[in-house]
């Protein structure tokens, strides 16, 4: 019940903010979990990156907003992410995974993803790591 109300309120806010800003937001996919994923972002490129990040399972360990769970690396404070330029550090790591670790569950490798999907993951990590006020909406 509360979840239903929350969804309705968020949906209403989305419509109002789109109306005020004069932007038309992309339509929601059927079944889109608005309460968990938040309203779709105005920039479809960033929204696509976010969806790829979620669907590929990154959010499960690292969090949608990069707040990690369990033993996952904190991407907000990761030196690899900090040093990354256009995926030059992150993409090789994604393709290889992190098999040599003493953690219980090593990070999987994502060598089966397309270049586009890998770039999406990089794009979302960099976007989500920026302070909220500096993100484009």
């Amino acid at each position, binding site marked *: 019940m509360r979840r239903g109300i929350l969804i309705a309120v968020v949906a209403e806010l989305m419509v109002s903010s789109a109306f005020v800003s004069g932007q038309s937001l992309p339509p929601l996919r059927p079944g889109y*979990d608005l309460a968990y994923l938040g309203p779709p972002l105005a920039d479809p490129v960033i929204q696509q990156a976010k969806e790829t990040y979620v*669907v590929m399972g990154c959010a499960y360990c690292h969090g949608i907003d990069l707040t990690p769970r369990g033993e996952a690396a904190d991407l907000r404070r990761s030196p690899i992410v900090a040093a990354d330029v256009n995926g030059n550090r992150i993409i090789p790591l994604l393709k290889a995974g992190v098999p040599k670790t003493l953690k*219980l569950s090593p990070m*999987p490798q994502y060598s*089966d993803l397309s270049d586009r999907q890998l770039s999406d993951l990089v794009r979302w990590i960099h976007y989500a790591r920026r302070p909220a006020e500096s993100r484009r909406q």
Partner: protein
Amino acid sequence: MMRLTRREFGMAVVAATVVRPILAQQRAPNRSYINGVQFGLQPFCYHDLAMTRENRPELIRRLVQNEMGMVELHATWVEPRFNTPGDSDEQARERLRRWRLEASPDYYRAIRKEFDDVGIEIFSYYVNFDGFTDEELDASFRAAKILGAKGCVSSYGLAFAKRIAGFAGRHGMFMGLHNHANLHDPDALATEESFIKGLALSPDFRVALDIRHYTAANGDCLAFLEKHHGNIVGIHLGDRRRNGGRSTPFGEGDAPIIEILRMIRDNKWPIVALLEFEHGTLRTEVEEVRLMYDYCKRALA
């Protein structure tokens, strides 16, 4: 003829008298017993739901919505958190330790009733035992027993398994050895060889096989089940790609989910299949569980 040492004979007797009857109890079917396989859920699947005792009512509501009659309950759904502002992690840990030792049996009975009232059995109690004192270990097994669990499951390596050997048995329960996909750490439970070493440590140790991680570690799940089914109490059912690959929706990875379910059904093995997945989705988690569960049901239709 193979001769047993007195110690081995003793372990065999314990296994026969303590653990076998526990496993036999699993056979009573319930709401999520589907065509010969008892299903349940590991609620990690509800990625959006923080695993706190405050969220337990929502967890139960979702389990019912997903038509689950069995669950592997993580202790965080049961125990309080003591991370109050200003307290260090050590202080919070110590408070939790004290709470565990002092918690009333009625506290756990009331939680069991919450699940009983909606027809959900707590099959196993998942506890991160790392750093537990002996008293805490005993307290956790006592809690698990009151909750109705047949045993506890935890993630750890062989060295820690040795440390907790014997605790489950004296509470008439099993201790589930749970694998991940770490092939680099020689202490990790990840391969058949490591499970064999783990099982040898205690007669009340059993296998809680995670078929996703076993697949990602390039293990042969079907061969493992064929060979070790007598020691397997449950499987964590999900999909991943081999060679340390990622988690996927059921049917899109390399784990032989359909074959495993049919193997359990056809052999009438008392192995509980607990849905657990880490793949992402844009759908609600309840809807995703329903879709994965439907995949399993179709496999057994």
